[in-house]
């Protein structure tokens, strides 16, 4: 539901970057969205298409979804899961894990016309 706010924030970042780099046409915006970030990719794509304007009026949004992953101190292994959350280490079942990916919300780069 808040994907429109996220799309507008992405477009603000794109607009500032275009002003800084002096580019007038953006072809593609690449973003990384963690699976645990609460953002639905389809909804974000739709919102982006509705809100794009200016140099980004014809831009496409490319979303890289980042799975939830972490590290377990008990079995000393790194893991990634399909779910949006982890209640126990998926490998050993222990509670001593940290989550270090899956909450990303970032603009990675732009493809622009020279």
């Amino acid at each position: 539901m808040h994907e429109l706010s996220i799309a507008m924030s992405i477009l603000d970042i794109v607009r500032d970057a275009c002003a800084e780099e002096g580019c007038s046409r953006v072809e593609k915006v690449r973003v990384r969205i963690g699976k645990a970030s609460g953002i639905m990719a389809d909804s974000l794509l739709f919102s982006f298409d509705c809100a794009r304007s200016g140099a980004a009026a014809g831009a496409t949004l490319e979303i890289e979804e980042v799975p939830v992953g972490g590290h377990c101190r008990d079995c000393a292994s790194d893991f990634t899961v399909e779910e949006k959350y982890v209640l126990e280490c998926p490998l050993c079942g222990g509670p001593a894990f940290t989550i270090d990916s899956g909450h990303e919300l970032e603009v990675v780069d732009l493809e622009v016309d020279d």
Partner: protein
Amino acid sequence: MKVKLVKKILAANDRIAEANRRLLSDAEVFSLNLMSAPGAGKTTLLSRTIGALGGKLRFGVIEGDIQGTHDAEVISAHGVPVVQINTEGACHLDANMINEILPQLPLEEIDVLVVENVGNLVCPAEFDVGEDAKVMLLSITEGDDKPLKYPLMFQKSEALIINKIDLVPHLDVSLEKIRRDAQGLNPKLRIFEVSCKSGEGMEAWYGWLQGRKESGSLHGAL
């Protein structure tokens, strides 16, 4: 040509949130972001809390709703300063909305500012508004599957208040499952089981709130 950026999408919101946090902390105001689904009992919780602690702490409230002033009227009957934000469709409050409305509040007369977010279990969890603590309310009538269906809010909150426990005998809902899943998602989560209607369990919440106000902003330390 490629332009490398690697920028946090919510950086602009987070910057404004940080400014709000500084402003509030300079005014010695402790702030709570109160989040829940619609109808969980946020306004009733606030009414009771202000009624019980109003003699010790000076409250101020920001009411976030899609439209209307019903909640603000309920709260203002307690004689505390209230401002209403109507988001006109937006499903959450963001830092800028709070920033714009803060000048309308007499911060020097407020010890605890409660931001009652728009009723929604998803979106408010994502947006820092500059609060010292996020508190979530879940009513048991929503079902015991909610922690695993909407994990983000449980993970981002410091405290979870489970409301309407007076209805437990009438429902097929497991308080134990809510507790277990919520704590599994967030081992540091403080959980209170209350009935804002009967008052059961409220003392523990009042105690926590008063203690938490004393420790102030833990942002970044959590």
